[in-house]
């Protein structure tokens, strides 16, 4: 009798958990990742509406169409990535391909549907292995004197040079129309990539093209930082002395000596000052990790912090070269602090959570860092990129609900930020505008980390 009743009772007791689980599943089906919309009044000014026309092919060299396609695409992408233009899409542009200011009909470009206020156009020809490009930037609203910019380029005919010329022309346009700030089309991003088996330092164009390795050390190399004059890359590497700061000379193509970066075997995260004269890094040679500063050759090491908890990840103020932002664990969880170059006036920036990887903006006003506010009082969330105004300590969250975002780095125009996004063990490098919009993935393959944007 007992055995006959027990199975019945077991089945009844199972009903409740099954129905409860089904109820939860039903509720969970309606939850999904939120879309984010940025809206507001007076968010920046009206962008300049620019049309990037297809350049006119001159001559019948067989290389010209392929080079022209690369050039047109690269120029359009550079101008649209700049963040200051409202691009006229190619489908709205008039059908003509003007090759010189005499050939262009500006009223066509300034009328609907193009409504362009600026037009970039020109002629491209590949003759005898030389790529010659003539480029003009015209003000479509000014019929009397439309020409704003005229440029001429003459380089070897190859896909890489077609891209380079497009980058240069785009940079000229951005510098002219962007209020004196140089464009980033010719800048590079240095990063860590492990697809060769070990983590090496790689470099790529700012738009993700032309990725190739720099170091071939066969050991783990982290946090590359290029010098302001693009001559050297400082990075942390695991050698027989432990972790040390090493210098790779881009001019010589090999590792050069950096004596100050080895002692203690626990040296990480180098950072160049904006004049290229000093390198700051974190070193545990005196016990706990502290911020040290040496000159660019590795001599004259000086300790800046002396709190017994860890002080790591220094970042210079590029405008004044007299302040450093760093991460300190002196209150428990890592927080962002700033201090003067002599170690005085330590100011705390974040009020809780888990904040790491600061990067100081080129105009000296903002800090970007990776922050997880879930640890402390505040809204729950993951590791996201934030921008903070240093004077008022007001911050803005740039990434939402998209994996773990870390290692942000400002672009030299102060308008873009590159960062690492990792989810499920795959890490990629993304770039975005400094307000969190226009996020583009730059790498593929799931093995790219710790990006660093070059200074020019």
């Amino acid at each position, binding site marked *: *009798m007992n055995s006959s*009743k027990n199975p019945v009772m077991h089945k009844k007791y199972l009903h409740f958990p099954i129905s409860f689980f089904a109820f939860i599943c039903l509720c969970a089906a309606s939850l999904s990742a939120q879309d984010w919309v940025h809206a507001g009044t007076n968010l920046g*000014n009206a962008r300049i509406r620019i049309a990037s026309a297809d350049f006119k092919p001159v001559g019948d060299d067989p290389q010209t169409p392929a080079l022209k396609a690369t050039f047109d695409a690269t120029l359009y992408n550079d101008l649209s990535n700049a963040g200051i233009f409202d691009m006229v899409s190619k489908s709205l542009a008039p059908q003509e391909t003007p090759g010189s200011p005499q050939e262009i009909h500006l009223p066509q470009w300034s009328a609907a549907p193009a409504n362009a206020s600026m037009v970039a156009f020109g002629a491209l020809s590949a003759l005898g292995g030389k790529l010659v490009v003539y480029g003009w930037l015209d003000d479509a609203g*000014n019929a009397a*004197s439309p020409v704003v910019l005229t440029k001429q380029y003459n380089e070897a005919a190859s896909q890489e040079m077609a891209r380079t010329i497009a980058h240069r022309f785009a940079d000229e346009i951005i*510098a002219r*129309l962007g*209020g*004196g700030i140089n464009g980033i089309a010719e800048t590079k991003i240095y990063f860590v990539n492990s697809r060769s088996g070990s983590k090496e330092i790689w470099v790529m164009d700012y738009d993700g093209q032309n990725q190739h390795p720099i170091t071939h050390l066969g050991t783990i190399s982290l946090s590359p930082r290029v010098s302001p004059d693009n001559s050297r890359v400082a990075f942390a590497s695991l050698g027989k002395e432990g972790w040390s700061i090493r210098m790779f000379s881009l001019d010589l193509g090999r590792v050069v000596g950096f004596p100050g970066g080895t002692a203690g075997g626990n040296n990480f995260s180098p950072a160049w000052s904006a004049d290229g004269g000093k390198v700051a890094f974190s070193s545990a040679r005196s016990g706990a990790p502290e911020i040290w500063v040496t000159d660019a050759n590795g001599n004259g090491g000086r300790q800046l912090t002396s709190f017994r908890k860890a002080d790591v990840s220094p970042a210079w103020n590029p405008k004044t070269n007299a302040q450093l932002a760093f991460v300190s664990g002196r209150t428990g969880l890592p927080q962002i602090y700033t201090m003067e170059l002599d170690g005085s006036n330590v100011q705390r920036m974040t009020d809780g959570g888990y904040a790491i990887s600061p990067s100081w903006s080129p105009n000296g006003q903002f800090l970007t860092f990776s922050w997880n506010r879930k640890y402390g009082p505040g809204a729950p969330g993951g590791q996201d990129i934030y921008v903070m105004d240093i004077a008022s300590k007001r911050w803005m969250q740039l990434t939402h609900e998209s994996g773990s975002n870390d290692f942000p780095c400002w672009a030299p125009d102060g308008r873009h930020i590159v960062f690492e996004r990792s989810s499920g063990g795959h890490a990629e490098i993304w770039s975005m505008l400094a307000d969190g919009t226009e996020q583009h993935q730059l790498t593929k393959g799931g093995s790219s980390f710790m990006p660093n944007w070059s200074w020019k």
Partner: protein
Amino acid sequence: MSTLYEGEHLEQELAGESFAAPATGSVLLHIGLVAVVVALGLLRGLFHPATWGGPAAGGAIRATITTTIPLPNDQPPNQNVLATEHPSPAPAPPTPAPPTKEAVDETAIPVLGKQKLSAPKAAPKAAPIKEPVKPDVKPTPNKQPVQKPTNKAEYGEQAANNIPRAVQGITTPGPTSITEGDFGSRFGWYVNQINRKMAQTWNKFEVDPRTPKGARVYMTFVVARDGTPSSVQLDKSSGSPTLDRSCLRAAQRVDTFGPLPPGYGQSTLNVSYYCEY
């Protein structure tokens, strides 16, 4: 025998009670309770003593929808260069009160030698008859004519502009105006860039919110060949010192407007810019 008893007892304990009947009874009781609560609520609703929101006293307040709220208009300041001739209306002072007669206290006991009571009884009889008849004519004394103060404010709405202003060749509409004649027509894109950069750096929150809408402050600065502004000066104040200061600070905050166009021959550019609140 005892083991049998224990066994039966144990079997009864382990057998478990059937709970079908009590369970259904419990469910029915709960349903009944809920039904009673719902029924009471419905019944109360049907026979509600007090009507909420009804027209009776203590009921709802009717709200009328209006399309406009009669707030005082924000008068934009007059952009006229000249001072106006319309004095602003200020209330005239009250006319001087006619000299009142000393109030005579009838109950007061006249102090001999010091005070004489006037005859209050005789005067009221004669007064209503005499005074309306008498014309109030007084011989005008021979004095210098005194200009009576009008007691209205003598200022206009607009402060007079004393700064001599050159004729400005305004070719591009907007806050920037260049004194060199044809710069705006040749390099309109650079003027737009100045507008854009200034609009970006101007912090409107620095201005006192009591500043009237439309108030404008004019200032001038000089743009060097590499685009850096200098000699930032206030040209015409808006009347609001916070607005003036915020506009000047915006120009000082700008690093560069971008290099001057190569087609422009001179080494500097004079710019007049206004910030409108």
